[in-house]
């Protein structure tokens, strides 16, 4: 089977210039390579600052990589012009960490959903409205919230709305950039189940970015661990979890809280 997305030697360098002009370089991505098969999930796990979000932005073509290539459905997309990019953008959608600012705070749910629908530009307004309520039901929201503005919704409702907005474009690849991290535990579980259910019914491919190895284990077919812009370990989820071959992975594993091992903090003295 052909991979849906293939990344090869992707590098992203940020030049930071201080006042005196002395250049300081930050290598956010260092020769990152991987492939994802259609309908599967790759989890990218790493600490904050390890380059996960830069990777998400590069794959969503919202950031130009310094070098390297990205092939989406066997089409090179890393070096397309903005006009050509616009045509394939709908197929790759990004869900952000904090739905509070990834949804336009001035708009109501209907306007938020109509925006991507209008991009496709092939249906009447009545059809689009119909589709908007359909999408809301798809993510488990009641169509009654169509008139509500984004900041009147709860965190979980907002993230569902953000997912519905991405689904409007019928993407093949969904990039979830810490999409569950800003939510309460119980809401996290609900959204996680929603995502799994959507994947099996729509056959979408996920790139699941998280700092939480336990969450990645729940989701992913494969796990790639990142540290300082590099993929330090990559393999099937079970293998990475059971036989971690890298120090970073072991640290991340140790960071998962377990009820059995939990020790209460003992005050000194």
């Amino acid at each position, binding site marked *: 089977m052909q991979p849906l997305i293939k990344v090869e030697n992707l590098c992203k360098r940020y030049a930071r210039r201080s006042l005196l002009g002395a250049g300081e370089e930050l290598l956010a991505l260092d020769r990152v390579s991987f492939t994802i098969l259609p309908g599967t999930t790759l989890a990218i796990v790493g600490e904050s600052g390890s380059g996960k979000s830069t990777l998400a932005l590069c794959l969503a073509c919202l950031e130009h990589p310094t070098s390297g290539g990205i092939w989406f459905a066997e089409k090179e997309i890393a070096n397309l012009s903005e006009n050509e990019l616009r045509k394939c953008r709908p197929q790759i959608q990004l869900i952000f960490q904090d739905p509070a*600012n990834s949804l336009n705070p001035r708009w109501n749910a209907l306007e938020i959903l109509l925006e991507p629908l209008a991009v496709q530009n092939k249906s009447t307004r009545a059809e689009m409205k119909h589709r908007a309520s359909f999408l809301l039901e798809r993510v488990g929201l009641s169509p009654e919230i169509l008139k509500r503005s984004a900041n009147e919704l709860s965190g979980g409702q907002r993230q569902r709305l953000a997912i519905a907005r991405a689904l409007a474009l019928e993407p093949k690849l969904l990039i979830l950039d810490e999409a569950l991290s800003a939510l309460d535990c119980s809401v996290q579980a609900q959204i996680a189940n929603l995502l799994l259910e959507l994947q099996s019914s729509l056959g979408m491919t996920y790139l699941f970015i998280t700092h939480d190895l336990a969450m990645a284990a729940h989701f992913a077919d494969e796990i790639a661990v990142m540290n300082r812009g590099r993929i330090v370990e990559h393999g099937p989820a079970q293998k990475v979890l059971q036989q971690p071959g890298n120090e970073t992975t072991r640290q991340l594993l140790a960071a998962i809280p377990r009820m059995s091992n939990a020790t209460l903090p003992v005050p000194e003295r």
Partner: protein
Amino acid sequence: MRYLLRRLGHAFLLLIGVSILAFFFATLAPGNYFDEMRLNPQIAPEAVAALRAQYQLDRPLPMRYVAWLNSTIHGEMGFSFAYNSAVAPLLISRARNTLLLTITATLLAWGIALPLGVWSAERLGRLPDRLLSWGTAALLVIPDLTLVLGLLVFAVKTGWFPPGGMVSVDFENLSSIQKVRDLMRHMTLPVVALVLSVLPLLVRHVRAAVADVLGAPFLLAAQGHGIRRRTLLYRYALPAAANPLISLFGFSIGTLLSGSLLIEVVMSWPGLGPLLLESILSRDVYVVIGGVLLSTLFLVGGNFLADMLLYWIDPRIRTESSAP
């Protein structure tokens, strides 16, 4: 609706307060219009006293304020000793000339500042943006007076523009098209001076406000949906950045009357500027008070307009104020 009425009430109270303060401070200053006559040996002190009595300058302050308030309600705003007429018509005819200048300049300045600020914010930190920043900073530190004098020198040296005034001497004999042409030629320099004096501030504010929202995830998301760059900038980023800019716009409406006083004086534009200067020098108090009050009216009106615009544009303000 209740919000609107409350705001109007506030604005009205503010105007009353300012009128009292302006009245008392203006009359508190030593001397009055007739003081200079006392130095003239040919005028009898009794005549001066009679004049003072005629214009009620000998009565106590609160009574004069009430009398002035009464005349304001009747649309006169007191009496100008120097022009020997009611203040209101005097102010209105001069204010019209000032507004002609400042409204043109304000529209022009915003018309330039919005695209320029967005353009600059889009290239944040890159060379064009930094050049523009340096340019606006340089323009910001040049005193208005230097700017105006420079423009006047330019006008005199090239002879392209008249160095002052509002119309040519033979204005009355011109055809209506020529009249418009003549007026525009006279307006050019003061308008350019005004635009140059406010433009850097506006550009910097627009740039900062837009740059602030450009990194917002909802803009990235919209870009990810495949929305055009131009739409993104003007339909998404600009409205999201609008709140501070609307406040600034209200303020620039507020300075429509008072912002050009200096430029009018130096370029001898027959607006409020020269009138206020004369009236202050000759202690024609009611004209001074009228001028202050008119500027306040614009300031309050500008802020009111800005609040209404914000209320209308930003749904979040509406929900906040309708909550109990």
